[in-house]
């Protein structure tokens, strides 16, 4: 049994709308150790909302409710906004989908990384600068000095995402939430970015929540997988056993994937059973 970093129990994310309350996440429970936990599901299944709710980044009018979201025994739901700011970045961090949008276009990359470091460390500018250079080199960025002076629009997607990873890991957090970190990248650089992220997460003994809609990627990359459907977890399995998954939704997703080694004229279409969204959420606790 691994030591538990994060324990989420009965998490709900609600959005009041004109036609009543919309529940984006409905009673999700899981734990995270020093492992790579994948969350897969289609668009709108609540996987991104789960990630953001852990950081309490759901903006009003959205509401987050949970029995607990405890980070090494400390319940994040009970923290004040000010205390929560000390958790964000320093203890739990997040890499988002597209570096084109997730980096501030009018600030130099250096300023953005230095800022991430200095928010949680009382370091001098020079120290923070050197630390940022080291971090950029750790994500395999050559010519880090030039990159520090550059602006985000001068970077390619793969570089941008590596910069994001450097920026999010520089305060040395315990948990990284990666929300579709490679979906906006070319296939050729996806693997490279994943390898870098994997290496850093392993080296630092961090917990990783990897949110994706790419089943194969998650099966390859993660240790354990939660499959979400309409705001609930429908199945939990070990990543290497994903292809033996039992839930009809997971089976449907797997069968609708084209495979090079087993070509078919027509891929299966996912048949949805209304019962899936009514069934209680499966617990992802270890």
């Amino acid at each position, binding site marked *: 049994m691994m030591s538990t970093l994060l324990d989420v129990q009965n998490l709900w994310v609600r959005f009041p709308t004109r036609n009543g309350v919309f529940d984006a996440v409905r009673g999700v429970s899981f734990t995270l150790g020093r492992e790579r936990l994948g969350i897969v599901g289609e668009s709108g299944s609540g996987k991104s909302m789960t990630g953001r709710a852990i950081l309490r980044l759901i903006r009003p009018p959205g509401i987050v409710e949970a029995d607990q979201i405890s980070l090494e025994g400390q319940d994040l739901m009970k923290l004040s906004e000010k205390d929560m*700011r000390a958790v*964000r970045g320093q203890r739990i*961090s997040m890499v988002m989908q597209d570096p084109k949008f997730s980096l501030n276009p009018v600030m130099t990359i250096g300023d953005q990384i230095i800022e991430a470091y200095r928010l*949680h460390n009382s370091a001098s500018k020079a120290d923070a600068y050197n630390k940022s250079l080291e971090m950029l080199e750790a994500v395999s960025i050559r010519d880090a000095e030039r990159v520090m002076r550059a602006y985000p629009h001068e970077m390619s997607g793969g570089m941008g995402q590596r910069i*994001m990873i450097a920026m999010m890991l520089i*305060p040395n957090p315990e948990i990284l939430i990666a929300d579709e970190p490679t979906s906006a990248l070319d296939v050729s650089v996806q693997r490279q970015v994943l390898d870098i992220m994997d290496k850093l997460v392993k080296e630092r003994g961090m917990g990783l929540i990897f949110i994706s809609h790419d089943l194969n990627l998650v099966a390859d990359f993660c240790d354990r997988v939660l499959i979400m459907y309409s705001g609930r977890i429908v199945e939990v399995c070990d990543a290497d056993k994903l292809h033996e998954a039992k839930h009809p939704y997971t089976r449907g997703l797997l069968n609708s994937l084209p495979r090079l080694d087993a070509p078919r004229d027509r891929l299966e279409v996912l048949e949805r059973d209304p019962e899936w969204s009514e069934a209680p959420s499966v617990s992802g606790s270890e």
Partner: protein
Amino acid sequence: MALTEDNNQRRPTRAPLTDQVWPFLRTTLLTLGSIAVTLLGLLFITFVIGRVMPIDPVLAIVGERASQETYDTVYLQLGLDKPLMVQFFYYLWDVLHLDFGTSLLNARPVSEDIARVFPATLELATIGIIFGVVLGVPLGVLAAVRKGSWIDQIARVVALVGYSMPIFWLGLMGLLVFYGILGWVGGPGRVGIFYVDVVPSVTGLILVDSLLDGNWDVFKDAFSHIILPASLLGYYSLAYVSRMTRSFMLEQLSAEYITTARVKGMSEWDVVWKHAFKNIRVQLITVIALSYANLLEGSVLTEIIFSWPGIGSYITTALLSADMNAVLGGTVVVGLIFILLNIFSDLLYKVFDPRAK
């Protein structure tokens, strides 16, 4: 050996000086060229409009009872027998020497008149825009950050009133309340009657001139006269600036890099001012420059109500008395201001947005 190599690598590399100077020179030359072309077009259009107007410039000078001989002499003096293009080049030549001709109304050079009325408008517009920006921008930012709250509602009402109240009404009410009843501010005009021409005119801006002269009494009096009309004009730009700021901010606050800043653990104040606000500066500059240009054009109604001898009322009076030289001169000056403000905001874009370089 390995050590020296490492040192070389770490040293920031700079482009040679010529590489830095040349693009700058190029941009400057291009900018000056575009100013010249725009200005030429502006002069041509105003000139043609002035000539095709059904106003006989000769009659306007000699009067209706002049003899045919006098009429013909003046006709030749004005060069009206020459082709329109030739006349335009004469006009262009004069304008390049800052000669806009003689005003028909007071027989003084138009350039002198403009040098007198423009500083009055400049002073009013500048204080007005400062008022509008200093209050309007924070109000807009606050309304965006607290969208839907009571602050947002108040900002909306303030802007709506600013948009919809006619200025002559607000101006008259302002004079009645703050000058007539409360006596907090000076009345119409730039200074009280006892202070007229007390300080020597250096810049034409009374606030500046009185400070240069060290005459505090004149400064205080001029300030109490300018504060009411300037706040009124400022209120109108506040309405515009705050609404635009709000919508620019709303757009930026929903951007993904804002989430990044929050994930870093940044306080909401820093997220708003250090991240979101930095991204609206370019758009905001356009709005402020346009707003300022509008004020510099001279707001006729405000100038009339407050007996403010500015360029708006100058051009209007000239137009009503068919004083075309004065109208053309005023129009060229206003056009020039628009061009200069546009170029100034273009330059600021390059400072504030790395993508515009």
